[in-house]
């Protein structure tokens, strides 16, 4: 169930959380449909089920903080304020997309929003996240970096090299492990000698905690602890977000490694959006009809984004040869 709101979280902000999580969900549903229709090609990894993590954590980020993640990146981009239209246009490979159509779903970036990707190679973004944090320390500003990675990625060696450096050099970084229980078809238990991922920083003196990553308020609360630790110069912090991905690993994953019942049970009991909706209504913060209006507005906006993405021009042929060197 949804936790009691924090003192720092006002009612207006909770409604915003609802709105942002639902925007990500509707965006992903639409992306799935466009993939089925052939408008999106290649690999496309949906974030449905995990929305609370980025929405909760982005609520504590300040101007100048950086974030970097894997290929499952649409939610992160929406949450940090990038335009759904231009994200969708990248998915459909159009010139108006964030990477001019050259990156696609897995590889998108925004210098303006300090979003450093969108990385296709599992765990490669984690040392990069430490580099972003390093730049903050070097410049002596008050910014922190958020480095997101999955439960499967958590077994890559470069993560432990990064933990060591981040702790040794007291870098302002929050490592966010999005533990959605599966790495493609491999469950956490089948790949990890110790499934308590939040303890993996112990050997490096990095504090960590496990968080209900399907509860946006719990995410925010833990995020604030991590943030305080990092911004006050105490070095890195690990947040293991326990969550679940509803869809297959990518659009082409038949997901035979888990039962429908398992998925349905989580949807019924832990859905971050449904639970927040009930919370808002039962605490008289909002009404069913207000939330339905919000949903309708979101659906319209996402439809617009899809129309924009489909009707935008494909990239100019000359773009093949640009951006190789600066």
């Amino acid at each position, binding site marked *: 169930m949804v936790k009691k709101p924090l003192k720092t979280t006002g009612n207006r902000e909770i409604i915003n959380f609802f709105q942002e999580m639902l925007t990500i969900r509707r965006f992903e549903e639409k992306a799935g*449909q466009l*993939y*089925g*229709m*052939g408008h999106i*090609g*290649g*690999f496309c990894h949906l974030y449905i089920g995990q929305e609370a993590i980025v929405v909760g954590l982005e609520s504590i980020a300040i101007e100048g903080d950086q974030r970097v993640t894997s290929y499952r990146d649409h939610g992160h981009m929406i949450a940090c304020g990038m335009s759904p239209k231009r994200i969708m246009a*990248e998915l459909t*490979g*159009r010139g108006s997309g964030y*990477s001019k*159509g*050259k*990156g*696609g779903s*897995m*590889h998108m970036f925004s210098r303006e929003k300090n979003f450093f990707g969108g*990385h*296709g*190679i*599992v*765990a490669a973004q984690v040392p990069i996240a430490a580099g972003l944090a390093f730049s903050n320390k070097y410049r002596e500003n008050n910014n922190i970096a958020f480095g997101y990675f999955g439960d*499967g*990625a958590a*077994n*890559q*060696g470069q993560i432990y090299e990064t933990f060591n450096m981040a702790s040794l050099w007291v870098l302002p970084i929050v490592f966010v492990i999005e533990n959605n229980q599966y*790495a*493609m*078809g*491999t469950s956490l238990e*089948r*790949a*990890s000698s110790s499934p308590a991922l939040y303890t993996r920083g112990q050997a490096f003196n990095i504090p960590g905690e496990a968080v209900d990553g399907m509860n946006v308020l719990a995410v925010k609360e833990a995020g604030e602890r991590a943030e305080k630790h990092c911004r006050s110069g105490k070095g890195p912090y690990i947040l293991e977000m326990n969550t679940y991905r509803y869809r297959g690993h990518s*659009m*082409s*994953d*038949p997901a035979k*490694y888990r039962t*429908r019942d398992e998925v349905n049970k989580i949807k019924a009991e832990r859905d971050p959006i449904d639970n927040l909706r009930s919370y808002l209504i039962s605490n008289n913060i909002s009404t069913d009809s207000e939330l339905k209006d919000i949903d309708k507005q979101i659906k319209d906006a996402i439809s617009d984004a899809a129309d924009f993405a489909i009707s935008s021009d*494909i*990239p100019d*042929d000359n*773009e*093949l*040869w640009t951006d*190789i060197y600066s």
Partner: protein
Amino acid sequence: MIRDLLMPSLSPTMEEGKLTKWLVQEGDAISSGDIIAEIETDKAVMELEAPEDGFLSKILVPEGSEAVKVNGKIAEISSETTEHQKDSRTSSKAKEQVETNVDKFEIPSTKLDTITVRESIRDAIKEEMSRDDEVFLIGEEVGEYEGAYKISQGLLNTFGPRRVIDTPITEHGFTGLAIGAAFSGLRPIVEYMTFNFAMQAMDQIVNSAAKTLYMSGGQISCPIVFRGPNGAASRVAAQHSQDFSAFYSSIPGLKVIQPFTASDAKGLLKSAIRDNNPVIFLENEILYGKKFEREASEEVIPIGKAKIFLEGTDLTLISFGIGMTYAIEAAELLSKEGISTEIIDLRTIRPLDKNTIISSVKKTNRCITIEEGFPICSVGNNITALIMEEAFDYLDAPVINCTGKDVPMPYAENLEKLALVNTQEVVERAKEIIYR
């Protein structure tokens, strides 16, 4: 309101699929997210979710239908139910169609004695594992998931978890571990989900596997196969679309194979597994599903022997792996213009079959190489240098290298096409050097 339900695209390489099963009937109420059908793609059987709430008012493509084109209409969804739709549920029309379709489908591909590259690779692994207990398969998703590209389907069942080993996502680690096992005499087959991820393990492959025999004065050999899909698939962009032929071929101590036909894939993989050296075995996702006629020579094909795929007199085209598809198409187009083309399928890139190349060029006096990899320091560059040194006097025109473009692979459909090598380009360059 009636909406069309279209055959969805469910994988990067899917163009058509089989509608294996309807899980609902005409007239049934469906709600968004319900599983309403099963669709077999080039890789797996996928579940189709209802895109919206409503009623499945009409099934247009009955279950069992093969080769249903992506984006073709498969059913209609209406927002409300009607009597008419309820009636149509009992109609036997759909049933009849199933039967006729099943009939059509029942012509089994094996009658023509064809086999896919995927099956051939699987057979090679299976046969070698049956023959030699020291051979084992290790990699991500090779066991319970049966391979990200279904190469290892059934192998866990046959050989058990001692010999079909699922790893964490730890390429550098499990590659080093497998090399250690090979040093002690086991014969690992290391599957990379794709070769793009072997870059995480490049140090172990190059510094440990390739060099140790030499550094140990011949004591420690490394009988290991590194295999997996290589090169561009479809729309998976820069980090997932790279041809590593030239990369690995520059390393002394490695052997590098890239087969084209199914029988070559099988015969060469068997040789690779039996070889006492580290072998890089480069497969291709797009070729996995391609059917080839079984060749008689399938059993064990020696490493380092090229194949004359087509004999000709005016021009030699040299390629390997998926590059062969452009060579074959180009040869067909050129023959319509009276140009006789010889095609060499290298099959092994290192060690290179110099004799086959040189004797062909001495005969045709012209040569074009074709590959999907980058142009700088390419396999073609190496072949060009070889021809310059050993057949310079026989050349009537410069050797041409047709390659992928000198750019990271873009995602957008139009740009991806431009980045890849293509048949038209081969034909044009051929005419240029034949002066017609």
